[in-house]
């Protein structure tokens, strides 16, 4: 396929995606305007838009957004540092990899969200319990990818660097680190995504503030249009954060 045809193909699939979303929202509008769908269950999209504009205009969201983003930043910072350090230390020994890699993969595969009640008991209803959950969930993909990144480097790279006289520091800085970096970066991106998911989710279950908390609060007071406005807002925030992280990942891999 020529580059131009490829470009055209990409635009075509973008157009179909946009069209699909438009169709979905139209269906939503149609069903709520003429389709006898209770506005308690599904508010009209225009009403949601109206509420969304109000939320943005009044700046009411700032406090909750700040709580959620702070929780995310702290959780991700802890798990990124701890995950890469623990992963690196494990990757130094073939025996440690054999022991800990399956163990971590096993723990990672259980639904860690189940620890939330425990964390609420330990750390209370405030941000610390969300941070603890976000950290726990994002630690594993980061640590596992760091192990994979450092642990499975082709031996020929190490051997040839040593044959040319590389010191231990040079071996790490110019061979091991660049070899492992793309894999670690993928782990960090995965960790970020699951941390965001866990924090928003846990805010909806037991919390005092945050975007998730606000959404549940609005649902409980039957303020459906405003709740949908907040969901839209949270989705937009999450999508743009993930887009930023993915583009950082792509940039770091080049």
């Amino acid at each position, binding site marked *: 396929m020529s580059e131009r045809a490829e470009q055209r193909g990409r635009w075509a699939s973008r157009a179909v995606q946009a069209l699909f979303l438009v169709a979905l929202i139209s269906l939503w509008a149609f069903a709520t305007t003429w389709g006898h769908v209770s506005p308690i269950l599904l508010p009209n999209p225009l009403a949601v838009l109206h509420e969304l504009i109000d939320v943005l205009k009044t700046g009411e969201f700032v406090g909750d957004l700040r709580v959620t983003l702070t929780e995310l930043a702290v959780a991700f910072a802890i798990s990124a540092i701890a995950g890469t350090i623990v992963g690196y230390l494990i990757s130094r020994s073939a025996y440690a990899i054999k022991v800990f890699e399956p163990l971590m993969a096993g723990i990672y595969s259980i639904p860690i969200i189940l620890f939330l009640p425990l964390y609420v008991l330990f750390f209370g209803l405030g941000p610390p319990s969300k941070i603890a959950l976000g950290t726990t969930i994002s630690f594993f993909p980061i640590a596992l990818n760091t192990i994979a990144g450092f642990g499975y480097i082709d031996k020929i790279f190490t*051997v040839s*660097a040593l044959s*040319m006289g590389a010191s231990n520091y040079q071996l790490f800085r*110019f061979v091991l680190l660049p070899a492992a970096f793309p894999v670690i970066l993928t782990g960090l991106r995965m960790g970020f995504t699951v941390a965001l998911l866990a924090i928003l989710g846990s805010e909806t279950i037991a919390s005092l503030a945050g975007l998730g908390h606000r959404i549940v609060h609005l649902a409980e007071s039957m303020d459906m249009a405003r709740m949908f406005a907040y969901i839209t807002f949270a989705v937009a925030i999450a999508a743009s954060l993930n887009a930023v992280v993915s583009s950082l990942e792509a940039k770091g891999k080049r």
Partner: protein
Amino acid sequence: MTDVAAVRVQGVSHQFGEQGGTRYVRALLDTSLDIRRGELLCLIGPSGCGKSTLLSIMGGLLEPATGTVEVGNQRVRGPMPREIAFVFQENALFPWSTVIENIRLGMMFQGVRRAEREKRAQQALAAVGLMDFADYYPGQLSGGMRQRAALARALSLETGILLMDEPFGALDEQTRMVLGEDLSVLLSRTDKTIVFVTHSLGEAVFLADRVAVFSARPGTIKEMIEVDEPHPRKPEFITSEKFTRIRNRLYSLLHDEIRKSVSESAASARVAADTSGRRAEP
């Protein structure tokens, strides 16, 4: 020979794994060898005969179980980046760096001053004809070009000794031939001592001043064959009567050893099949 050998291998034996263990392999048996200054010596032999093992031991990448290697009266106890450079079979270039970065990195590891690196990198690229590909990543190059780049990296280190472990082993026949010719030209201009491991009889005869023929595992040098033909060698050498005669001699020496090593590995495979199949039988 009155002058000191460039590399002196004395009574080197090596094995992998523990004696009695299932993975125990005696790779090399009591091998001694003097490599003359400035010659190109080819090591040839059946698979698993220990020729690559010997190369690693010579370069200090592997500690021999017994025996010693000396480079210029100095005992080899680890890598000697100032004296010895390696070219490996393939993919030993760092894929995250461009060709010229790979070359600079090697010199940095070796301890060459920054100002000197650039000059030498350009020279090495010119020597292998890769000037226009300095900023390419290894993944963007063909296998033959990658090996040229690996050779350039080794040349830039300006060591007296070059150890090449089947450097053209993964390439197709035509590319091999061209690279072999270029290597012969390149070497005629330097006084490097080169040890070259290969599977290819033609490559060995075309490149080598001497060919060391290995016996089947546990390997040791069975015979040393001289190839009395000045470098750089012309493509016409391949069709000459002398080439054919030496190649045939090599072939007959190797043929028996290869048979031996194949029947041995078939026998051990049969033993393994017997022991694993025993339980399944009624």
